Structures are given as structure tokens and as C-alpha cells.
């Protein structure tokens, strides 16, 4: 199962990378969302899958699955949500200010 999941993660990363390399800003943001899905699954997978029961004490005698990756992913989900929201607003502001949603048209200013 773990090997299969890693391969799935590889596919997701490829798709995310392809989207990030696009010119359209929405596709780039989608790419980051796909990449974060991939990373969450990867963290969970490398911690070992289905090695025990749900990590809630008292629900069973154990053994429990590794709770640490789950805690890390929980944090990661929330943060990736925050960044996605921020990126979306950034895209909106970029379109309002520059009149384009194509990042290849953003070249900075000459005095940079």
C-alpha cells in the first residue's frame, strides 16, 4: 500500500508542478493546492499506514497508528488553506492592478 501511495504522490506532484509552470495565475494556485495534497499524503505514508487503530486512547487496546504525522498534517492543512486564500486574493489584486492574469506579463519595475 505504501509503495502505491508513494507512486500516487509522485503523480500528484507531477501534475502540481505542471500547473505551477503555467502562465495563468489560477492554474498556478491550483498547482500549489495539488502539491499540498501530495505532501500531506506523503507525510502520512512515510509514517506507516494502517499500523494500528485510530489514535484515540480508550477506543481500543492498541496498538495505535502513528499520531505524530497526523498532527503535523493537521497543521499543514490549515496553513495551506491560509496560503491558498492569500494567493487567491493576491491574484485578484494582481488582476485589478495590472489588468492581467498572466504571470509572464509581470516583469517587475526597471529600478529593481
Amino acid at each position, binding site marked *: 500500500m505504501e509503495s502505491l501511495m508513494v507512486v500516487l504522490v509522485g503523480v500528484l506532484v*507531477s501534475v502540481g508542478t505542471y*500547473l505551477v509552470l503555467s502562465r495563468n495565475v*489560477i492554474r498556478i494556485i491550483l498547482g500549489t493546492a495539488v502539491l499540498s495534497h501530495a505532501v500531506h499524503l506523503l507525510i502520512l505514508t512515510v509514517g506507516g499506514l494502517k499500523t494500528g487503530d485510530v489514535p484515540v486512547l480508550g477506543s481500543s487496546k492498541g496498538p495505535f497508528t502513528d499520531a505524530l504525522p497526523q*498532527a503535523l498534517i493537521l497543521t499543514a492543512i490549515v496553513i495551506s488553506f491560509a496560503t491558498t486564500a492569500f494567493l*487567491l486574493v493576491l491574484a485578484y489584486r494582481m488582476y485589478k492592478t495590472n489588468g492581467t492574469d498572466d504571470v509572464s506579463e509581470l516583469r517587475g519595475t526597471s529600478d529593481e
Partner: protein
Amino acid sequence: MSIEFAIIILPILVAALVPIFHRYLSKNVIGWVVLFIPLCLFIILTTYIPRISNGETFSNTYEWIPSLNINITTYIDGLSLIFSLLITGIGTLVVFYSIFYLSKKESLHHFYCYLLLFMGAMLGVVFSDNLMVLYAFWELTSVSSFLLIAFWHHRKGSRAGARKSMIITVSGGIAMLAGFLMLYAMSGTMSIRELISNVQLISEHSLFIPALLLILLGAFTKSAQFPFYIWLPDAMEAPTPVSAYLHSATMVKAGIYLVARFTPLFGGEMTWFWVITGVGLFTLFWGSFNAVRQTDLKALLAFSTVSQLGLIMSLLGIGSVAFYFGYADESLIYTQATFAALFHLINHSTFKGALFMMVGIVDHEVGTRDIRRLGGLMSFMPVTFTIALIGSFSMAGLPPFNGFLSKEMFFTAALSISTLDIFSLDSLGVLIPVVAWIASVFTFIYCLIIVLRTFTGKVKPDIKERDLHEAPFGMLISPLILVGLVILIFFFPNILGRYILKPAMTSVYPNFSADEMTPNIVAWHGFIPELWMTIGVIIFGIVLYKTLKYWKRVYNLIPQRLTLNSIYEGFFAKSEDISGNLTNRYMNGNLTNYFVYIYAFFVLIVAGYFISSDAFVWNPLSGSKVDHYELILVFVVMFASVALLFAKKRVTTVLINGVIGYSVAFFFVTFRAPDLALTQLVVESVTTALFLICFKFLPEIKPETSTKVWKISKSAISILVGATVTIVGLAVVNYDKFPTIATYFEDAYELAGGKNIVNTILGDFRAFDTMLEVVVLFIAGLGVYALIKLKANKGGTDVEKSE
């Protein structure tokens, strides 16, 4: 804490305090307060003279980083005592002079802060026995010199001069560091004294000559030897007290100190002899030759300093020959060269310090130091004239001034070395006295220029209108003390020889008898070759001075673009151009390109390392078994993600992204992570809603119009990145060398009072993580708010209304 350590720390400590407490001191007082420091240190150091001259040395170790062999070991012997007396003695005079020289409007607290910092660093250089500590202080002198040259940082010249001196001296310093590390690699010790006592162990090592050359590079850049001297004339942008102190009397002599200090280690080596003597002699000639053409008095003095440093350097080179013979009667004569070097070092500090202060006075009173505009100042400034006369004639090597004595000894050394037949001296040796003599002729000429062009002749009309008068008495005291020393040393040289120079000779030649190496210095030897050389210098010097305008064309023979300065500047201009062009070529502002670089390096480094270390593992049957509904989920996600690439409509893409997100939530369910599944479901719903809201304000996705090549390379990069992540993931999944740490958290109820382990990790074990996560959320929220709200108020479309 030992007294020696306190001597180094005190100036640095006061340097730190001056900028803090200066506002409680009046501008009139600050200099006097600072003056107290070098004066005290000088008095303390003079108390060492009797004990040091009896052959005692003082050493103290303060452990700093013992595991790396780096300890602050202070070591005072004759050699370091000479330098420390110069640093504090000239330092006292310079601070005293600067009280009158610097206007009260200047930022005096900065000036004295840098000056004291330099003083402490320089004392650190001469007192350190540990190579690394010496190096640290060495660079600190470069930094403080940089700050002092750029003291008037509103001037372009000051900034350029400061940068040049920094680049050259610090590059040399780094070379020296490499040399020190080689010494450490050879011997396993950082202590200079231990190195010297183990000289037989390292002198056969293959790194011996590279270390020697690298250390010399450090010494030559610091002591302004050819071709590195170009920073010193530009350093004259510093206030004159700084030029008198750092750039003639002390810092530029750090290289001399280093060479003298390492002579017992490298002396007797042919490379050491030829590099030091050769570079020193050429610098002596080149500096004096170029000093003659200068029109700015300070630049002239700078070139003369370069030349005099070359003289001292070449004497040390000649002196190192004594080690070739070991302790024997015939080698004693070569030790006299080192004696002359140390003697001239002191003499140079006295007369050159006085001359710089003299130029400062002229600049201060007349408003210019350009000799084309000066002249006839003798009748207005008789005391200054006297100072200039004594200082210059001492530098020219005339009696009854101390320069005469050391110049005669220099000629003796040059003549004695030319008769040797080792190190292929039998063919080249005759050049040494010839170059020495020619350089002395030029030295004589520029000394005449200093005195005659400034003080005799007619007063030029444009300065005549000024109210010319003698400098205030306070400004004259310091140079008068120095020229007083110039004369005193001439009449009583043996006091200096007995108490100051003799112990220093023991430091350079530890195996020799100090008494035999200390000559009785006398002014009159009878009509010996040295005296005829001096007479020749005077005659030719006067003739060439009188005919200067006829042969001045010589200086135009070297085309402007081939001078060292234009080579230096050309090098930096060119490297700036090239690196600018190169950077603009790949940093072209296209964000997608930057992503490509990042991904390419990621693949190259990670996958490259994996392939080279053969870490690839493929073991599909390991781990838990695959259930059929999980298999369905895997295929759903794979299908959805590939479909994402081909979706045309933006609504479709977002919905497909939702499919992936919700499937991930299902994965969390099957993998026993209910908290994650719940969170994922909520977040995925909100994210999808956000995307949809955003679409209201953004245009429909246009089909990507890109070339076929770009599409293929984009796919290739994506697949490579995915493959890299996959092989890394597989390696990690199949790696089981470490036991899991998860069992620790299974005591969650006892440790944190919660039954849901994930919750206790978030809320208790790793609560700081969670707190910072909340901070990130908060910052992102602020960003969202700012982007929507604040900008809109500045005339943009109002978001709230359009919603």
C-alpha cells in the same frame, strides 16, 4: 585577568562606551578623556622595559575555544614591546594633536571610537601568540582603518579610498588565514612560539612554501608593498591624524611585524629571502620614484611611506640570511640588517609622524596642501618649517638626525649581502646596493621638494590673501615632541639599542647572543663606502632636483591605462559588467523561468545524489496490504489529477480539485486519521467556495498559447520532479533503521490529560507549533484584508460595493 589582556581590552571597551556616553561630555572634553587611555597604556608599557631588556617575557593564557586550540594567549617580548610602545606612544601624540586639528563640529565620538578600536586591535595583533586570535585582530585593524578613511563619508574620494583599502588588505588577510591554517595542518599547533620551537618538523613539509607565500601576501598587502601599495595613497582621504597614526606609524607596520615575527620560522629559506628582499627593494625604489611626481603633499608622504616600508622590508629579508648559516660568527653581520630594520622602524615613525602632522598644520592654516599653490611659508610659520626641515632631512638620511644612522646601517647591510654567494646572490647580489642607492637619491629629491616647495620661494597670490600665521601652540606640541626624538635618538642611539632593540633582536633570533647582535651605534665611522654613498646621494639629489623639469617626462612613459590603479579599477568595472550581463541573462523577470531553475536544481541535486549513492529501493509488497476500495480511490485521484491538466473551463478545474481534496479526506478515513478527514472536508469545501468567489472577479482562463518545445519541456520537468519525489518517498518508506518515537505520545493521558493523541500533540506536546500556525493564519488574514480593503480606498474599485 592579566594586565596584558587588560591592555588590549581597555581601548576596545572605551571605544564601545564613547558613542554611548558622548552626549554627557562636551565636545571640548571628549578628546581629553580619550587621551587618557593611550597615555595610561604607554606608561604601563614603559614599566615593562627594564624587565624585558633583562630578557624576561610575559605570557598569559585565557582559554577561549580550547577544543579548537584557540586560546587568547598574550605574549610580550622585545618585538611586541617596540610595536606596543609605538602604538600607544604615537597614539597619545595623535589624539592630542587631533584635539586641536578636528573641528568641534565633526562627529568626534565616531572618530575616537574608531581610533580606540584600532588601537585595541593593533595591540591585539602584536600581543597575540595564537594564530587565529592574531588573524581576528588583524582584520579588525582593517575594519577600523576602513571606518577611519571613510570618516568624511560625504566625500566620494573617501568612500572609494576606504573601499579600496578594505578590499586589498582583507584579501591579503584571507590569504594569510589560509597560510595560518596550513601551518596548523603541518604542526597541529596554533601557537607561534610552539611553531618556532618545532621549526625542523615543518620546514620539510610540502605545504611549507605555500604557507610562506600566503603569509607574505597578507604582510605585503597590509604593509603596502608593490604591487598592493595602491590603496595607501588613496587612504590619504582620511583626516591627517589618522594618516599620521594608522597609515604611517602603526597599521602599515603590521606587515613588518608579521615578517619579523615569522623570521625565526621561515628565515634561511631562499624563497623567503628573495621575495621579501626583492619586493622590498623594488617597493623602496618605486615608492620614492613616484613620490617625486606627486603634487599633493599627503600623497607625496604616502608614496614616501610606501618606499620606507619597502626599505624596512628588504632589511628584514637580508637579515633572514643569518638563519641560513645558523649561529656563527659570519652570520652576525646579517643580523645587523634586522637591527637596522627595527631601528629604522622607530625612526620612521618619529619623522614620518612629525611630517604628517606638519602637512596637517599647513592644510589647516593655509587651506591647501597642493605644492603648486604653496610656497614661501617659512616667514609665516617658522616653527612648522623647522619641523618640516628636521623631519625631511632625517628621512633623507642626513646628520644630525636619526634617519642618518639607520640609512647608513641600511647601506652597510646592502653592501654586505652583495658579497654573499648563496641563493644565487653572486650574480644578482650586486643589484641590491645599486637599487638601494638609486632609491635613496629619489628619497633625497622628494625630501627637498617637501621643504623647498612649501616653505621657500614666493607666496602664491591666491593664498596671500589669507591671514597666514603660525598654527596654535597645541597643534605644534605633538610634532615638536617627535622631532625632538629625531634629534635625541641621533645623539643617544645606544640607549634605544640597549633597552628596546636588543630584546627585540632576541625575539627574532632566539638562538643568538643578544649582546653580540647589539652594535654600538656611532655616527662617525671614518671615510667608509657608506659615507661616500651618502655624499653621492646628496650631490646627485641636488643635481636632479635642479634639473627636475627636464627629466620629468620620464613619468609619462608608462601609459595611463597600464598603471596599477587603472588595472585595479578596470578589473572591478569589468567584473561588474560581466556579472551584471550574466545575471540579467537568466534573471529576466519571468517568474516561470525562476520556477524552472528551482525545479531543475531540485531534480539535479536530490535525484543526482540518489543515483550516485544507489539509494533506490523498489519493494511494492512491503507494508500494509491493499484493499480493493483503496485501489479505487487511488485510481480516482490519479484520473482526476490527469483530467485536471486537460480541463478547459475554470469551473471544471476547481471541481476536479475538489474531487482530489475529498478523495484525500477518504484516504484519511481509511488510514485511521478521523481528525484529518474532518478538517480536510471543511477546508476543502471552503477552498472550493473561495475559488468560485474569486472567479466572479477574474477573467475566464485563456487556453495556453505556448510553443510545442515549451510544452514538452514543461512535461519533462514535471515528470522528473514527480519521479524524484517518488524515489525519495520509496526510500523513506522502506527505511526502518530507527524505531518510531510515536509510542512516547501514547502516554498522552498521563502526560497531557487527553485521550485523543493527535489533539494532545497539537494542544500540549507541540503547542508552540500550533500557536505559530495560528500566527500564520492571522498574518494571512491580515494580508487578505489589506489587499482587498486598503488598496481599494485609494481610488480603486470598491470591493464591498461590487459584491
